[in-house]
């Protein structure tokens, strides 16, 4: 799973969860991006390359995503997050 894909995922479908974003990645890889958004982020090629690397080249293979509100875990197996919910969760 690319981090770009992770950026889309939420647990808001869960009953009682309002935002459900961002899902915490357990065992994830942290890229070397600056803590705060830099000013020329749209044109700074070096920065954009790093963003591209983090979003599209880092691959999470096994681990889990954790809902920030409910703590519900979504397993990632062989790079594919399982976002299926049980009927009693929605």
């Amino acid at each position, binding site marked *: 799973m690319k981090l770009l894909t992770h950026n889309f*995922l939420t647990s808001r*479908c869960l009953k009682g969860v309002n935002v459900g974003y961002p899902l915490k990645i357990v065992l994830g890889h942290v890229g070397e991006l600056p803590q705060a958004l830099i000013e020329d982020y749209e044109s700074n090629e070096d920065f954009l390359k790093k963003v591209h690397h983090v979003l599209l080249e880092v691959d999470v293979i096994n681990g889990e995503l954790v809902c920030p509100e409910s703590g519900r875990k979504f397993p990632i197996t*062989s790079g594919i*997050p399982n976002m*299926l919910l049980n009927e009693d969760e929605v």
Partner: protein
Amino acid sequence: MSGIKLKQLEQWLQQVDGFDEGGGKVDLEQYTTPPHLAACFLHSVRHHLEGKMVADLGCGPGVLSVGAAILGCHYCLGFEIDADALDVYRRNLDEFEISNCDAIQCDVIGGIPSRFDKCFDTVVMNPPFGTRQSGADVKFVEAGLRLARSHLYSLHKTSTRKHITSLANAMPGVSVKVVAELRYNLPHTYKFHKRDSVDINVDLVRFSYE
């Protein structure tokens, strides 16, 4: 690589593995899009794939995602409910050394988080025709139209054309067009079919936002 020839694309797609032995699961309407059909489909819409953000709904083993990647999409995300099909998807991506596709396991009908809305330029799919799960085809179209910014391309039985087009015409801002009529050879793995395989006519339907 949108300069690629139709024949060549078809040859590549012949190497995409289908559902695991024993065929797909009947209740989920798991039959792959055959290489020729998939190649005709994708090649005719290549200008809406190259350099685009693409979603593949009910991606199964991933022939449409692989084809979209070969045609130069920027990123393709598959959505699929079945873990076994996703195992094959992952294997196919590895075989082809494709690194700009991903998949998530979720229910396309009612289970796609709303953050995905309008995140994709183009959505492609070969949805369940709704013969097992009634109305599944229409629910897939609705999901596709939520995700797509510009175009949704989908395969439908020609016999349901009236139904599908009138449904789309009733949606504000959506225009619908049958862009190709194709033949689909459904395999014999479906025991309720009397013959070994059966040819059905399918439409490649384009739904666009004006």
